[in-house]
């Protein structure tokens, strides 16, 4: 069965019929060609498929395509500027060596982007908690955490457990 939905991906409007059984991940990857969202498990365990739905990081593998009706979706393909300039978050991931095989990277960059855009302050532990939905087997998370901290600089908490603690 099919259902017509209207939504946008990285600012581009779509109005299409989707198979009601399909996940948003399948819609994005198989029909629309946004292959930056990765499938590591298909059941909400790894975070590789994360996209932003109205700005909120979401596992697209367990989000039905039909639910995207009326939503604004951001995928990794929409993070850099149209002219190809990397966002601050992307730059931080490149420079901090937070990318190895890169399979977890799109999801992590998107979640970090959402955190950066929230304008909130995070302690180091809070930041870890926010990122803990993303599994990475390559990096041991060290450089990912550094990249996330760098991305959030300016509104990162400078309390005692933070590496940005100024009293040291």
């Amino acid at each position, binding site marked *: 069965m099919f259902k017509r939905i209207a939504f946008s991906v990285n600012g581009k409007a779509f109005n299409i019929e989707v198979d009601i059984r399909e996940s948003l991940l399948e819609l994005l990857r198989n029909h629309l060609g946004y292959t930056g969202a990765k499938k590591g*498990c298909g059941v909400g365990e790894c975070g590789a498929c994360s996209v932003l739905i109205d700005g909120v990081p979401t596992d697209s593998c367990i989000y039905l395509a039909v639910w995207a009706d009326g939503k604004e979706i951001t995928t990794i393909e929409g993070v850099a500027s149209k002219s190809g300039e990397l966002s601050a978050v*992307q730059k931080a991931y490149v420079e901090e060596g937070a990318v*190895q095989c*890169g*399979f977890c*990277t799109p999801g992590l960059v998107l979640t970090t982007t959402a955190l950066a855009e929230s304008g909130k302050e995070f302690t180091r532990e809070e930041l870890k908690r926010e990122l*803990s939905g993303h599994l990475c087997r390559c990096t041991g998370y*060290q450089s990912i955490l550094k990249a996330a901290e760098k991305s959030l600089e300016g509104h990162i908490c400078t309390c005692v457990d933070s590496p940005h603690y100024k009293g040291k």
Partner: protein
Amino acid sequence: MAYTVVGKSVNKVDAIAKVTGKAKYTDDFHERDMLVGKILHSPHAHAIIKSIDVSLARALPGVEAVLTYKDLPRINYATSLPGYVDDGTETECEAECESDRIKFSTAGHPYSLDPGHRDVEDRHILTKKARFVGDDIAAVVATDELIAEKALQLIKVEYEVLEALTSTDAALKEGAPLIHEEHEGNILASGGFAIGDVEEAFKESDYVFEGEYETSIVQHCHMENQTSYAYIDSDGRIVIVTSTQIPQIVRRVVAQSLGLPWGRVRVIKPFVGGGFGNKQDVCIEPLNAAMTIAVGGRPVKIELSREESMVDTRTRHAFKFKIKTGINQDGKLIGIHISAVSNTGAYASHGHSIAGSAGGKFRYLYPTKALKYDPITVYTNLPVAGAMRGYGCPQIFYAFESHLEDIAKRLNMDPIEIRRKNLVEVGYVDPVSKNKITSCGIRECIDKGKALIKWDEKKASYKEQRGNKLRGLGMACFSYASGTYPVALELAGARIVLNQDGSVQLQIGATDTGQGSDTVFGQMVAEVLGLPMEMVHVISTQDTDISPFDTGCYASRQTYVSGMAVEKAALEVKGKILEFAARMTDIPVDKLELVEQRIIYKHSGESVLTLEQVAMQSYYDRVHAKPITSDSSNNARINAIPFGVTFTEVEVDIKTGKIEVLEIYNVHDSGTIVNPLMAEGQVHGGVSMGIGYALSEQLTFDAVTGKAQNNNLLDYKLPTIMDTPDIGVAFVETYEPTGPFGVKSLGEPPTITPAPAIRNAVLDATGVAFNRLPMNPQRVFEGFKKVGLI
């Protein structure tokens, strides 16, 4: 030695592609009308197929082909590709014609011309006898995933269920059923080595100690599952795009498994989402090739689910060790006898090589007068074990470094001192491989690690601890190798083309699966040719039709072995550039040098030509044009031994059995570090994998049915960011004379010693020795209960 680009933390060459979503992995390629291949896995750990009826599945609309063992080629069948079309009729095949079906090995080792040195060929693409829960019984090709799934359910299989041997003890029992008829006693292979006379050595020793240690089955959990797609090209060749570490070996094994000439197969490796050894095995590609043959060459993809990937690909061998060690009063090791039982699961895959590698790499660390190693590798009805980061070393070093710690404790010796007394030195020649240690920084690594963790201070302050939370310190050392020489062939290739603007393309056969080898090779070329990194274009895709020959990504071999080929290719191009310039200018070539994209006079530094001028002439000079390229191959008949150590501090909660790693430092002697930032990243990932191995990871199975209980990322406790402490990394940069730019390996080593170091720290904190991995809260809690701590 001073380098310009080597030794710098340049950005990873593929990082931008990966942060923008442009990097294409196997599943990101779409072929029009791609069919979906799905596999019927055995629900029984040990069973013979009495009958198999696929008629209902074949009749389902949307099903294009159904395959069972009956449909797979007999020896010498297939010279008529793509003539095989599944017309739905079943060939009548009874058990007696089973023997002429092709058996092959999936191990990612180079081919050997010596039949005695080849991997054990013990499997068919689809089997008539199930040997573990998950074994491949039948396969369906359909127009979409749901139809394929449905068709699988329509296949009727009648099994004769046999006793499931779910442990090595069960498999080795007298009278146990045979998993493979040809392997008496379910022993795949046995045999190690002996140096000196260990019994004599025990007699000479002041003390003899014994210990038993056991490791668990774990899984790679690379984030990209095994996946591939295949089709037959217009010239009748099978093309397979796959997430692999070893494209050349995939090509050969697919051809062997189907009885095809090797040149009829082409393998393409795009970006790969991690492998860690799992993709050093040819798991799904032979079946994928058979599927496309069955549908007349139309594209078919096999995308394993996470649940499949965790049990139907490969795991890490669990080992049981018995160690007996003779040692003198002063701490000098006199004789060591290690016996090991390695659990390879249902098929050989890498088989006994893992056990062999464990002993072979351990041998370098503490040379003793007598060392005897006798491992056996045993078949069981569990998922197939294969290569996994460390290749036997996380197992053997966990065992020995735990054992040595126990000895130190019994002799009341400092654990660092006991190791120092026995460590290898430069110049040592291994009596078995005849390999010589040409650089060794293990002592400096220990000094550095000891200082980083503040060993002495903390040791002193933890002397009189009380209460329910106890802290302790532990350490463990390792030795490894750079590649497989002298066990196997170490061939690598590199090709360089100089472009008109003076930039170059670099093609290598070595595969980057995330670790960063493409970047490191780019740095080497930039170094030799004096180019900035942006002028070195590294071709990251490997294609067996196009890329130079290289055996692939395993054994931590690429920076060292493939690096030699890259350096050679770059030097050749440099030589050709200077010769071309000499001809253009009539200046003798030995007076010229290539620096910063200019040809200069060696003595004065004065510019003679730009590199671009030479490059343009090489393409367009009407008389002398000859583009400057190199195509080099290197057969490395040498090996370099890297060393390192883990130091850690833990806090153990006696009441809950929870172990928290407070600090952990890995210090490595990997020779020259080509890219410090990426090297640190390798260590972080390896240590994190080692912490998982120590504390939480384990694939568990029902003891009766052999069914996996936690083959998913929720129940299998892979460390998350919350579970991973800060990981400290340091390097002791020795210069390895045999390596390109002085390098030794780094890829696998970081994951070897976190587990024994943590185990030793727990012993230090609590006095309780955990000789079985993982040390998860349940096991630790039970351990404390047993000794009366709770």
